[in-house]
């Protein structure tokens, strides 16, 4: 069926209208001559049928014999399409132009992408590539991949391997970085306290301890001095001391643990407001293109007396390597009802405490060890309000490496 349809398309098909007294006779005569007719349909007095273009030139005789009139009412197929093309030359020119333009445009590199870089800057690689002719706008066959690869390898010592490949109009410079040994920072530095506290433990790995266990330090005090300690000299006291002209500054290193106190305050009313969504909501839709926002559907403001807002950004998924600049912003306004609850003093106390503890916990580092944990209810003159003071004591590392300011 399909092959026959295709054959019909290439030879061309004509829809004919047959009028006359005996169209059946015409059909039979056509059949006898082996002229293929199909899709025969009767509509009133006229009979419509399809006939192939080569057969159409042979139906003259049967038509005359059966005294019917045959009229062409439609054409379909390649010969007719070609005829149309002959008449509309610009269409063909356009098609050829399209092909040419496609060919020309795809022979240039439009994008240069760099993949696999972690620490090396992409601009540096791009600059080297551009020096060797790999830039957007360069002709594809003028790019010498090998040359660029070796040049990048030679110029950027951090690169272990580099591969340049061109896929379509995109050139990808794939880079594998060397894992370089970390260069140690040797800038002279002290260890200073980040918090007030009492030192509980002090181990100086490099440098001289400036405080000792049990000392109270303030924030910013130097804990370990970045000066070279000379224990050998101290041990050998008998020897004449070596005259020191100047201190040798080093980068201090060590562990300093201290007891640190925290205090915070929380309060809670005996009446608590609770918000609950009623289920009524409104949408506002806006189109966001770059910086400008176009409102598609607005909501009277404020939409409800009490409400919560939720903003959803909808964006089309990225296609290949380009993101869409336009996105939709949907704001949903939920109506909320406010319910006032009386709560017991115990519950209020709990709430106040949690609030206070939360405030402290944001200040305590993760590895701190909590020693004492206490709370104290404060007397208030205000009725219906409970106030709590929470204090905590922790042991934590308070050392912080600060670069020494060298004073001449």
């Amino acid at each position: 069926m399909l092959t026959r349809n295709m054959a019909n398309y290439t030879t061309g098909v004509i829809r004919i209208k047959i009028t006359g007294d005996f169209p059946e006779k015409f059909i039979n005569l056509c059949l006898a001559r082996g002229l293929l007719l199909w899709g025969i349909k009767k509509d009133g007095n006229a009979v419509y049928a399809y006939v192939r273009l080569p057969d159409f030139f042979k139906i003259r005789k049967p038509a005359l014999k059966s005294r019917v009139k045959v009229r062409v009412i439609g054409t379909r197929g390649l010969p007719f399409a070609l005829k149309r093309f002959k008449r509309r030359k610009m269409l063909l020119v356009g098609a050829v132009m399209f092909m040419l333009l496609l060919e020309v445009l795809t022979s240039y590199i439009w994008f240069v992408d760099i993949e696999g870089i972690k620490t090396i800057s992409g601009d540096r690689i791009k600059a080297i590539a551009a020096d060797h002719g790999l830039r957007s706008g360069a002709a594809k066959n003028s790019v010498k991949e090998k040359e660029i690869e070796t040049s990048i390898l030679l110029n950027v010592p951090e690169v272990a391997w580099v591969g340049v490949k061109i896929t379509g109009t995109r050139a990808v410079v794939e880079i594998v970085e060397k894992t370089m040994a970390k260069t140690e920072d040797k800038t002279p530095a002290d260890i200073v306290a980040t918090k007030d506290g009492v030192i509980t433990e002090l181990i100086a790995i490099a440098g001289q301890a400036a405080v000792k266990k049990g000392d109270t330090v303030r924030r910013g005090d130097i804990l370990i001095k970045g000066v070279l300690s000379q224990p050998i000299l101290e041990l050998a006291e008998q020897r004449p001391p070596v005259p020191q002209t100047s201190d040798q500054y080093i980068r201090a290193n060590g562990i300093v643990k201290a007891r640190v106190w925290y205090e915070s305050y929380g309060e809670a009313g005996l009446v608590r407001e609770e918000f609950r969504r009623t289920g009524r909501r409104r949408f506002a839709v806006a189109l966001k293109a770059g910086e400008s926002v176009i409102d598609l559907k607005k909501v009277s403001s404020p939409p409800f007396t009490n409400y919560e807002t939720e903003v959803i950004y909808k964006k089309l998924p990225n296609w290949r390597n380009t993101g869409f600049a336009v996105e939709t912003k949907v704001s949903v306004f939920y109506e909320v009802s406010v319910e006032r609850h009386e709560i017991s003093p115990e519950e209020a106390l709990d709430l106040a405490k949690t609030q206070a503890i939360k405030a402290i916990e944001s200040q305590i580092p993760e590895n701190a060890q909590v020693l004492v944990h206490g709370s104290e209810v404060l007397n208030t003159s205000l009725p219906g309000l409970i106030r709590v003071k929470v204090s905590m004591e922790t042991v934590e590392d308070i050392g912080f490496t600060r670069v020494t300011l060298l004073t001449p």
Partner: protein
Amino acid sequence: MRRGKIERLAALLEIPDDIVLDLPRITMLGNKQLLVENHKGIIEYTSPLVRIKLNNGELIITGQDLTLGNLQAEQILVEGTVTGVKYEI
């Protein structure tokens, strides 16, 4: 009778009757399509009625919106909604 003899011979050799006796083969696909092979031409064709000449009589097909598709010297395909097929000798 000559015909009877041929028929018996055909039965003996297990040759289908339609080949030996030049009979039409009529195939129906539901009431949508009706294929008549080995016909002798169309006598009448209108939308509700098709008459096809056969070797020994004629076939009258009634229905709605009948069209003739795939018309060839050997076969006729009647498409549409077939409501009746009558064989007249």
